[in-house]
């Protein structure tokens, strides 16, 4: 009952624009009150990188009671969908487990959280 629920958002961007997308995403996340967001999946489709983020929208009780926790998360989702139109931001299922995402998270940690650089490295490696 106390488990949080996540909503997936996927950005579809070219490898060249990946760092721009990451930068825009980081800006949007930092604009809002703290919302738990994790990198849930990275995939490649043709020349595009599909970057899936899992945004926590709170517990069931948060959602049903319309608490601030879930409200802020829903606003963030709305802002990402509207603000990152250029990168075709869209709702998506949260992947069960992603080796690529684990790799990206390791990169992030090794680079002190510099998401743009890490994602750019990942794109280069792809």
């Amino acid at each position, binding site marked *: 009952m106390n488990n949080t*629920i996540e909503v997936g958002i996927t950005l579809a961007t070219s490898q060249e624009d990946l760092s721009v997308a990451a930068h825009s995403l980081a800006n949007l996340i930092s604009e809002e009150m703290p919302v738990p967001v994790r990198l849930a999946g990275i995939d490649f489709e043709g020349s595009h990188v599909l970057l899936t983020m899992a945004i926590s929208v709170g517990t069931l009780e948060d959602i049903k009671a*319309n608490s601030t926790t879930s409200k802020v998360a*829903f*606003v963030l989702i709305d802002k990402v969908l509207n603000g990152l139109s250029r990168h075709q931001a869209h*709702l998506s299922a949260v992947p069960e487990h992603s080796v690529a995402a684990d790799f990206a998270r390791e990169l992030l940690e090794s680079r002190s959280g510099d998401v743009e650089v890490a994602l750019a490295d990942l794109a280069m490696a792809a």
Partner: protein
Amino acid sequence: MNPTMAAAFVTVLSDGAWNDAETVNTLALQTLADGGTDVLDQFDDDRAINVALRRTRTWMIREGLLEFDATTGDIRVVDPEDATAAIAAQLEDSNDPAAPEPTVLPSGKQAFYDIEVEGVSEDEIWGYAPTVTMDRLSFTLTNPQEFVSQIMDMLPMTTFTRLYSDHRSRIWVPQGQGAEARALVEAWASANDIDLMRIRVDESVSFRNIAQIPSHLVGGLVQQAVDVVLNTSRGHNICRGFRNLAERRISEITEDVRSALILFAYDLLDRFDDARGATGKTNFTTFVYGKSANWVYDLERRSYGREVLDTRRKMVEASDELIARGEDPTQSMLNSHIDAGDGSFAERMRVFQALLNIRDAEAIGEAHLQIRSNDPNGPSSEDVFDLPTAHELSRAVSSACVTYGENGKVRTDGVALMSTYLSTWGGMTKREVAKVLSVREHTVGAGIRRVAAKAQDNEALLDVLG
């Protein structure tokens, strides 16, 4: 007249000296003295300049370059850069020497040159798909992806269709069989409990099976025609119309406008008839130019609704009336003329922005070109409805569940969003969603219906949600 004067107008407005006629005149005169001497002859005295400035203000209000600040009652420039460019274009009559010169026909219409793509003339391109006369059945469905193909399979005649960016479904049938097709489609819809909206038949209209034309030639033709139109003063008006709708600067939306106009031009391809011009011969650029005259207005009406458009129009009329009486149109004065508290305005604007943010129009255009046909001799494609709509669908759902009030207050409908999300993207049944959310199945259904209800208010949303 020169842009220096335009810059002065904007400077005056931006500095908040709008209501101070003396300051306005002084600054305007200073500008004239600084180099704008060619406009001096047109103004006899301060009063004339004052009148000129008032006329400019009226025009700027009408064009959406000025807006009212409800908190202070003042008028301010929406974007000085856009305003400067718009005034400069107005003063210079927007004559770009690089833009192609249209020819004015005896009818008063404008015509442009024929286009050539990779050495193939426009006449040769159209020659791939000669014009035929057919009847056209058009209607709006909530789920065209699924039902249009069923309808075409059901109709006992040759039919053609493809995707259109306005989300209307159009099926072409042989000339003289439109009424029969309509009756069959209505009977089919009634038997299957499917809601067909705004069904109509246009008899004996031109049709081209554009799938017969090599796609790179069609693509080149469309893109060149669009670029020509965008380089005319009408192109400038189109950009300005989009700027008013999207509330973004022209420089930020130029590519989006081009993409949207390309989609619009693709929609026109199969009904273009080069033998129907004012002189018995026309070309595609002229056709697009003519059709684009009311395009932005139609989009505006679709996204804002007629009521809001009327409100805007009343505001401009009220403003003109007050200015004519020598009064400054403050917000409080305008409130007596208009209904200023339209809460749906922001939401409708968000819907429009969802439509506006169509990138990669060329790629989408390729998909639009794919004709589906039950003609055994004609081309067909199973991928015809594979248009990427995940982004637009996501935004539509989010817009329905996260709303922003005029006072900045945010309202969220988490249950509706999560019900729709889990059933659409999680692939769950209502019962499964209810179990995950620990609510009754009825609550899940009600949440999804609330999202759908938002769609009922707006045709664009309805189309997106399918």
